[in-house]
């Protein structure tokens, strides 16, 4: 039987004397779309940061495709496990410069077709490529940030409250992008969001984070009904 994409075993995270995550166990299979919700400060963003080793757990083990995360070359891991933050990071220059902030001018020009293709997939105008990134709307900037992550062709996409700074229309657009990527491209997604609209995403497995503990939402449903 194939290993799960991600497997978290007894994950605990402590910071400044506080327990942020308390013995979290989770399995994520390839192609799954996971939604983690919960109140602010419950530990959901802290959990997400462990998947691409932006942080390391205090104890417990994480496996990615059957391999212990700590044994995988970290820069290689981050190419396979992309991450989008609450707000778009804006680097000086055009959208093209922002799509490949570490690349040389030559590399950017060689990747231009791929960039245009991604903009089209994100329902963004291809004319944006040479626009100054800083003059675009927050929604456009966030979707370009998503395209930036996708340029690495990751197998997994981590999203930390990607719609928290967006209006309902831009939230809808970015969620549509995520559904498309999961259902048409087979991308595995872990989305952290407390946005109501996220609950209606197609094909999601819902989890809730509460005081550093993770559980399926149906447990909450059972308690209330």
């Amino acid at each position, binding site marked *: 039987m194939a290993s799960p994409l991600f497997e978290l075993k007894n994950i605990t995270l402590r910071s400044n004397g506080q327990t942020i995550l308390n013995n979290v166990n989770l399995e994520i299979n390839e192609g799954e779309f996971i939604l983690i919700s919960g109140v602010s400060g419950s530990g959901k963003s802290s959990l997400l940061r462990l998947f*691409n*080793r*932006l942080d390391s757990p205090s104890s417990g083990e994480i496996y990615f495709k059957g391999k212990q995360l700590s044994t995988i070359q970290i820069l*290689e891991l*981050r*190419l396979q496990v992309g991450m989008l933050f609450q707000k778009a*990071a804006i*680097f000086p220059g055009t959208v093209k410069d922002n799509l490949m902030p570490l690349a040389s001018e030559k590399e950017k020009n060689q990747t231009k077709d791929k960039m245009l293709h991604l903009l089209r997939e994100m329902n963004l105008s291809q004319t944006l490529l040479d626009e100054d990134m800083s003059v675009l709307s927050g929604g456009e900037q966030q979707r370009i940030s998503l395209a*930036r992550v996708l340029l*690495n062709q990751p197998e997994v996409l981590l999203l930390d409250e990607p719609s928290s700074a967006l209006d309902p229309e831009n939230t809808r657009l970015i969620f549509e992008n995520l559904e498309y990527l999961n259902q048409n491209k087979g991308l595995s997604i872990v989305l952290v969001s407390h946005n109501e609209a996220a609950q209606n995403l197609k094909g999601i497995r819902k989890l809730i984070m509460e005081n550093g503990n993770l559980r399926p939402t149906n447990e909450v449903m059972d308690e209330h009904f």
Partner: protein
Amino acid sequence: MNTFDPSTISFGDLFLSLLLIVLVLAIVGFLKLPLIKPLLMGTVRSFLQLILLGYALQYLFALNSAWQIALLFLLMIFYASWEGKRRQKIAIPGYWRLQVLTLSISLGLIMATVLLIILDLEPWFNPVLVIPVGGMIIGQALNGSSVMSNNLANYFQKQQLEVETLLSLGASRYQAALPLIREAVRTAMIPNINALNTVGLISIPGVLVGAVLGGVDPLTAIKYQILVMYFWTATTTLSCAILAFLISGVFINHHHQLQRNLFYKLRSS
């Protein structure tokens, strides 16, 4: 005819120079700047420190072994690094150690270039030249790199999102820190580059004035001043670049993780 005799300045004359500090105090008082105490402290300290230095130099210039001079520089570097640490607004773990390393490398490289290659000094440890040159290098490296490290820490604190975005895209810690390193080093170099461009036209350096007042022929003093300007610039650039990379290695660990807790501690303190 110039009848000025440089050896005639007395402590009485120096006492009169306090009139200039009275002028500063008047302006500080008028603008209600909270600087009276540090200004008075600085005035007294600079007087005492320089007088002490004068007496110390008389003794130090008599040193005639490379080991004694190396030990003197080591003590100066230790003290300068402590001073650099004191100037940091954001506490950087291990800063003193990093500053000692930075100052040692900068002093070693710049002094070797100046004394062995440019001036071809034999023996290299002639204290009359080595001690003032070394002192200037340490002082310049301290000033430049402590301004740079304050700026760099500030950029790291304000641009956590940008740094983590680059790390998440697969950048190594130094690739992710490079935009911030560039900006911090550039800012620290600006005063030196401005000085190179304006010296002799709209400014006359204090060291040159001091040498001429001390009786040195102006053209000779100027030749040394050119050398001093170049090694100041080299010292600032080298020390800032070294320390910037060392500090980036503290803010982003070898697992390429931004140490955000360093900034939390700052906020809560």
